[in-house]
């Protein structure tokens, strides 16, 4: 027996104070104890709150270009009493743009991840649950999707569908589909050989009930982790697609990626126009990543408790 085995044996549940705890509750307790997880969770929480409460938090309405008159070809008004962060190059209040930008990112990120997850899960469940020819066909489709670089795929889809937020959402989700498909398929396959699945069959449960009632819930953990990490990349990809010119046609729109694009023209005059949205993107992505990693550790029964 190696040292790892000896120490890896979990102490009886009572000893760790987790008596009566189902797997979700135990995971929650482990998550609470993880410092980077807490940091991530706080960042995500702040992001979500800002996004949801945007109308209440922002001093003005977004993308109004109300103060366009104050912007000259060589200057962009900086911080003042009315505009805490100053204006952007289109004359909108910068703080307002940033706050509403969170909303854009959240909506697009969440929707695209949800679509990607749903479509990917369906494919993955078909492949893993049914197996055989269905599995082969589905996985070849998934392989094709995976072989195209994610951003390129997103760009192609967006180009096909035209500009606008919705096409961005679909574009990003296209790249997530194969990831979730593989994840669910792998999870189902891994469980198929396990004794508890055989036991459920021997008890006379139908295949569908075993997959839906037992195997899927046991797959939720990795899916949740992946979804969180995917949200992180989605935030960045939204920005990237906007940066590339896909997405909302209105250049003054409150969206971090677009703000990065338009800031390019004024980089020497007002570098903060790029800095703020850039930092916002980075911190948000970091928050989701930290949370996702902490979730992964918390849900893994073998990690040190």
């Amino acid at each position, binding site marked *: *027996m*190696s*040292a790892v085995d*000896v*120490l890896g*044996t979990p*102490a*009886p549940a009572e*000893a*760790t*104070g987790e008596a009566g705890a189902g797997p979700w509750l135990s995971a929650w307790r482990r998550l609470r*104890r993880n410092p980077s997880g807490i940091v991530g969770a706080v960042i995500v929480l702040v992001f979500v709150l800002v996004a949801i409460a945007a109308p209440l938090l922002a001093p003005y309405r977004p993308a109004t270009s109300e103060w366009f008159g104050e912007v000259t070809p060589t200057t962009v008004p900086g911080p003042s009493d009315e505009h805490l962060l100053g204006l952007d190059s289109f004359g909108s209040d910068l703080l307002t743009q940033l706050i509403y930008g969170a909303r854009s990112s959240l909506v697009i990120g969440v929707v695209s991840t949800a679509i990607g997850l749903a479509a990917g899960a369906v494919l993955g469940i078909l492949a893993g649950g049914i197996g055989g020819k269905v599995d082969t066909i589905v996985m070849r489709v998934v392989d094709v999707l995976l072989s195209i670089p994610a951003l390129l795929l997103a760009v192609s889809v967006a180009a096909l569908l035209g500009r606008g937020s919705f096409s961005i959402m679909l574009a990003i989700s296209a790249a997530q589909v194969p990831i979730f498909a593989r994840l669910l398929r792998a999870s189902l396959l891994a469980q198929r050989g396990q004794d508890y699945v055989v036991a459920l069959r021997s008890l006379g449960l139908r295949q569908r009930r075993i997959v839906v009632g037992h195997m899927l819930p046991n797959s939720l953990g990795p899916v949740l982790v992946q979804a969180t990490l995917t949200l992180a990349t989605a935030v960045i990809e939204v920005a990237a697609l906007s940066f590339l010119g896909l997405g909302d046609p209105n250049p003054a729109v409150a969206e971090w990626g677009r703000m990065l694009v338009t800031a390019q023209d004024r980089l020497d005059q007002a570098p903060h126009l790029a800095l703020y949205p850039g930092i916002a993107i980075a911190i948000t992505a970091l928050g989701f990543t930290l949370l996702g990693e902490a979730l992964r550790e918390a849900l893994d029964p073998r990690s*040190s*408790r």
Partner: protein
Amino acid sequence: MSLLEVEDLRVRFSRKGGPTTTAVDGVSFSVDAGEVVGLVGESGCGKSVTSLAVMGLLPRRGTTVTGSVRFDGTDLLTLSPGQLARRRGSDLAMVFQDPMTSLNPVLTLGRQLTEVLRTHTGMNRSAAKKEAVELLGRVGIPDPRRRAGEYPHQLSGGMRQRVLIAIALACTPRLIIADEPTTALDVTIQAQVLDLLTALVRESGTAMVLITHDLGVVAGTCDRVNVLYAGRVVEQAGKRELFAEPRHRYTTGLLNAVPRVDAPEGTALQPVPGSVRDLLPWAQGCAFSPRCGVADEGCRSGEIALSGSEHGAGHRARCVHPAEVGV
């Protein structure tokens, strides 16, 4: 003086933000040169952790080891990692339970042997290769020269375990610790590997600590036996005395609960009630008392010492109401 003297060994593990577990709670035993001493017990008794503590293989973080482990007079627990590493392999060697995971899957068997040889004896490459082939032959591997160039996955479980033994014996250590060396093997292979191990050990005068949960293995291989429960030694005796006149109620319980191939037809098993998790901390009495049929108030208070000149020479039990002879 004994070759190995373990005295009041205690090992505690503390996890991040969690409770401290005491895996070994005051274990003392000794091993003389050339003898085979058994550490017998079930899960949670601390036998494996004891062996890792002796070898210095416990992780540094979160582990507290107290007591003394005197090997040939030197307390191993006081040595630096570098000094300890020099002794491992040449003075002390270990054979692990699972041969598949204990061998490096990407190195040939010959290489794994020569590595040990060259590290401790400073042999040159060709001398080490020759010695490696000879060692493989000594542990009964047919066609050793060819096998030396093979990888672990190409061998059966029994052969892999023989290779592990060869590695352990490579530098003729004074002491071998074998941790459940045959538990993962089929019974026919187990018999052969145990025979091999005992033969080699006797032949070279090496001492051995054999860790197992199987009383049958103990009966066939050990000279002296230590029975462990919940981190402490509860009975210590020569092999014949232990089986003929077991004293501690846990020992008698085990012997009555184990099915035997030679039992007369219709023999009933007498289970030991409860499980290893039903225990009283040693500081408050006998850890086994919740499961013991004859425990009384005297068993549930204070420290119970390992005593017993009355049991016969070298036979001690940590029991307030030891079993009578003939039970």
